[in-house]
Each structure stands twice: as structure tokens, then as C-alpha cells.
């Protein structure tokens, strides 16, 4: 049942020009960044060759590209997630799901997986770009996979937060703005932690970027993975609660 809802969501996304234009724009920007990174690498390749324990192709090209991709997605993800629940409420199509024998959990999970499917397609294009380096050189597969895992988790977190914001309002734009604000805040929250001693631990734990960085370096730390999974779970549960609350008398 969840999969039927997810499939419709994904199909609905690809029937709108928004999804295609976002795919195109993101791909274009990332391709440009990718080429720029390759350029940098070519420039420093002779020096790197002489160094002992020099950073490899994966460190110089793939890791920064994934890092940039996360920032680009931070801007783009709210545009995809904004409509997911708010538009159903606005167009009154939600009652189709509500009067069908499906639970709110199934509805929210279906929606989430549908959006995630779109982001995974985007990620797939990105991965292909990185893999194309295999044509001329060899990559550190471990680092590549850890980077991909990191990006998947980051996107999963973006989608969950966006879904929750979408459940709060009937206006897609408000959902977009507020999820962008939330994500940006969580992205930069460790900046505040950098100065003070007391709060820094908590803030840098909360930061989305802190956990991503270590995965990009190829450090697979279960704390980081658990952080993202908890983040996703929290926002999914909140969304389910929020949608259920719409039915209840207040």
C-alpha cells in the first residue's frame, strides 16, 4: 500500500515540469563544479605526485563535489517537498486517502518514499558522474561509497524535514520557505558552537554538516548514521502526528 502511494507520488512529480527543471538545473551546476574540480586536480597533479601520503582523486574531486551537492540540494529540496502534503490539503485530494482503508502512517511513509525516490534518481546521476572517473583513473571505492551513503542520508533528512513543514500548512510556498529556513539553520548551527565551550558539543551534534563531513572523509562512524536516522524518524513521526491531528476535534 505504501508503495502504491509512493509510486503515484513519484509519477506525479515527474508529470510536473518542476521536477524535470530541477533535475536539469542541479545536474548542470554539479557538472560545472565537477569539471572545475577536475581542472584543479590537473593543475596540482604534478605537485601531488611528489608528496608522500598525498590526497587522491577521490579526495580532491569526488568529496568536494558531494559536499557541494549537499548545499545545492539544501536549496532545491524544499521546492520538491513543499507540495507533497500541502497541495493534497489544498486541492482536497487528501480525503481520497483518508477515506481509503490506509492508515496515516502508510500515507506519510508513502509520500516520503515517493519524494525520496526522486532524490535517489538525482543522486544516481551524480554517482554516474563520479563513476565516469574510472575511465581515466582509479577511485577509492570505500570513500566513494561512504560519501554516497552520507549524501543519501543528508537527502533523506532534507526530505523528512520538508515533509513535516508541508504537513503544517496549505500553502506550498510557506512550506518551502520554512523548510529552507529550518534546514539552513541546522546546517550552520555549529558556527555558533565554534566560539563557546559549553554549548559547542550540543550544537555541533545537531548540525547536519558535521556528521556529513566525516562520512565524506571516509570515516564511517555509527553515531553519524544514527544521527540521520533519528532525524528522519523524528520528522516522520511529527508529520504523522500533525496529519492525524487534522481529523481530531480541537
Amino acid at each position, binding site marked *: *500500500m505504501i508503495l*502504491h*502511494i509512493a509510486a*503515484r507520488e513519484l*509519477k*506525479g512529480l515527474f*508529470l*510536473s515540469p518542476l521536477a524535470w527543471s530541477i533535475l536539469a538545473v542541479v545536474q548542470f551546476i554539479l557538472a560545472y563544479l565537477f569539471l572545475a574540480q577536475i581542472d584543479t586536480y590537473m593543475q596540482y597533479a604534478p605537485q601531488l605526485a611528489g608528496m608522500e601520503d598525498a590526497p587522491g582523486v577521490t579526495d580532491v574531486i569526488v568529496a568536494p563535489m558531494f559536499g557541494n551537492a549537499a548545499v545545492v540540494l539544501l536549496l532545491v529540496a524544499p521546492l520538491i517537498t513543499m507540495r507533497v502534503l500541502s497541495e493534497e490539503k489544498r*486541492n*482536497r*485530494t*487528501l*480525503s*481520497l*486517502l*483518508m*477515506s*481509503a*482503508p*490506509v*492508515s496515516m502512517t502508510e500515507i506519510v511513509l508513502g509520500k516520503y518514499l515517493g519524494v525520496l525516490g526522486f532524490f535517489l534518481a538525482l543522486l544516481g546521476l551524480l554517482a554516474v558522474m563520479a563513476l565516469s572517473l574510472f575511465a581515466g583513473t582509479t577511485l577509492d571505492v570505500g570513500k566513494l561509497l561512504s560519501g554516497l551513503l552520507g549524501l543519501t542520508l543528508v537527502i533523506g533528512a532534507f526530505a523528512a524535514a520538508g515533509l513535516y513543514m508541508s504537513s503544517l500548512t496549505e500553502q506550498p510556498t510557506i512550506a518551502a520557505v520554512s523548510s529552507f529556513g529550518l534546514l539552513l539553520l541546522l546546517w550552520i548551527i555549529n558556527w555558533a558552537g565554534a566560539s563557546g565551550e559549553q554549548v559547542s558539543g550540543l550544537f555541533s551534534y545537531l548540525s547536519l554538516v558535521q556528521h556529513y563531513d566525516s562520512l565524506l572523509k571516509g570515516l564511517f562512524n555509527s553515531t553519524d548514521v544514527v544521527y540521520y536516522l533519528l532525524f528522519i524518524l523524528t520528522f516522520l513521526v511529527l508529520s504523522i502526528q500533525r496529519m492525524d491531528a487534522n*481529523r*481530531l*476535534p*480541537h
Partner: protein
Amino acid sequence: MAQEILIDAEHLSRYYGPTCAVRDVSFQLAKGDVLGFLGPNGAGKSTTMQMLTGNLAPSAGTIRVRGIDLLDAPKRAKHELGYLPEQPPLYREHTVDEFLTYCGRLHRVSGNRLRVAVDQAKHRCGLGAVGKRLIGNLSKGYQQRVGIAQAILHNPAVVILDEPTVGLDPIQIREIRALIRELGNEHGIILSTHILPEVQGVCNRVQIINRGRLVFSDTLAGLEQHLHSQHLIVRLRNAPAPTEIQQLPGVAAVEVLDDGRLRLRYEGASPAEAIAETAVNRRWGLEELIPERRTLEQIFIELTMQDAHMDAGTSTATEEAA
């Protein structure tokens, strides 16, 4: 009632903050019933329907669908329900076929049964020719039909239609009414409407809801009784003085209408025969003799207006169905 009870709603209430939209509404729907739900705007029709379909949780009361409690086992109960909200819930970017297939899947219909169900629903709602078209490009009437098709697709025991004929042309309205009557044979149907003749044409039970309370609930046959007023309309060419007619047996009061016709109120059995005889004997020149019938509209207005004058605190108006 020998028929199977499909919906059993008891003491439903729903508050929106301090406003009470539905207050202590109870009723039953048996198989084969087509229940017409009438009421002025904002009376609580849609709220009641949303509660029956699980779109809103009632503040108090219970709903059982075929004996299954909607609040305790919503999934099982919703299997038996088909619902067309006021605004049909349609994904505009899908074709009719895609949309109906999706709706079927949501109700766990799959494989060959799904194909048959979609075809049947399309056939019943006259959608055969537009299966491949985008819902967003269809006219309002066709969209409404897709909404109805969606509600009956999974062959639910109860079909709940919120103003199903709004926005349709007269021919479509006739078709939809015929469809509702046909569905009424095997399902239980609740439909809300503003159009009073629609109720008389389609329903076999009527409920009038006003300001959140059920003010009238009866079968259509029972309604017919209410419609008989104790009046005769008479036109006489050589009318005598009203006092002379009033002396006839059975006639309680005489009223001269603007166009010269007389309106006789009687008590007990109709004195029509006696009046005709007397009129012929006394050469009054009888031209018309019509038993006056009240319209559903009059009853509707009486009930809803009288209730408006009443204080909200009193609750004597609830009449239970026989």
C-alpha cells in the same frame, strides 16, 4: 427492519472549537436505503458525512459500519465505504484510467479484479470514451462523474455522496439519478443535496438537519403523509357566500384566494365528494376541485425556520424514524 443495518451512527457530535457543527445526531442506514440528507447551508451535512467516512473524528458518539466500529478498526470499516466529497478528490495530472486504477489499489483491489472494477465503474458513470484523457482537461460534469466512479469502484456496501449532482447538466443529472437508484438496489446510499425534488425522485428516506440537529427523519412514504394537508382548492363559476360553504359537513374553514378560488380546510375525511354533489345540485358551476398538497419545500422551510426561532438550548425537535 429485516434488512441488514449498514451504518449505525449514535449520538454523533462535532465541535469546531466552541462552535458546535453537529449535535447528538443518531440514525441508521439499512441495505437498500437511499437516504437523502437535506439541510440549509452550514447545517452540518458535510461534517456528518466527513465523520461517517473517517475524514473527521467525532467529538462524541460512535459509528459502526456493518457492525465494525469506525474509530476502533478504521481500515476494516473503510473497506465498506465509498465517499465522494463536495469537491471531488481528483489528481488533475493523471488520466481517468490511471486515477481509477490508483483508487482501486488504495482499496486493495488488484490484478484482474481491478481491471474489471475500473471498466465497470467507467461504464456505469459513462466514462468509457474519456479513459485516456487527463482529468484536468475534462469538464466539470465529467470530473464529477470520475468522482462518483471513484466512490463506487471497489463495490462498497455504503456509498456516501456529498451533493453529487452539482455542476451537471440536466441530462447528466438524470443519468446520475438513475445510477443512484440502481446502486440503491445493492448498496446503502447517503446523499446530501439542496435540490428538494431530487430527494423525492431518488430517495426512499429523508432526513433534514438544521443547525447541527436532526429535525426530521422519515421514510418517503411517511413524508407523503406529511405532504397531505387538510385542504381542498375549489373554483366555482357562481360561488355562493363563503358562509354557505362553511356550513357543509366536514368543512372547517373557508378562505377566498386572490384569484377567486376557495381554499377549504377540513377535518377528518375529505369532503370532496359531498362538495361536488352539493355544487352540482345547487348549480354553483364547479370548475376545479383539487386536494392541496404541501411540497417538500414547505416542510423543509417550516422545519428549518421554526427551529431558527427556537432557542438553541431546547431539544424537542429530534424526531426518530419509525
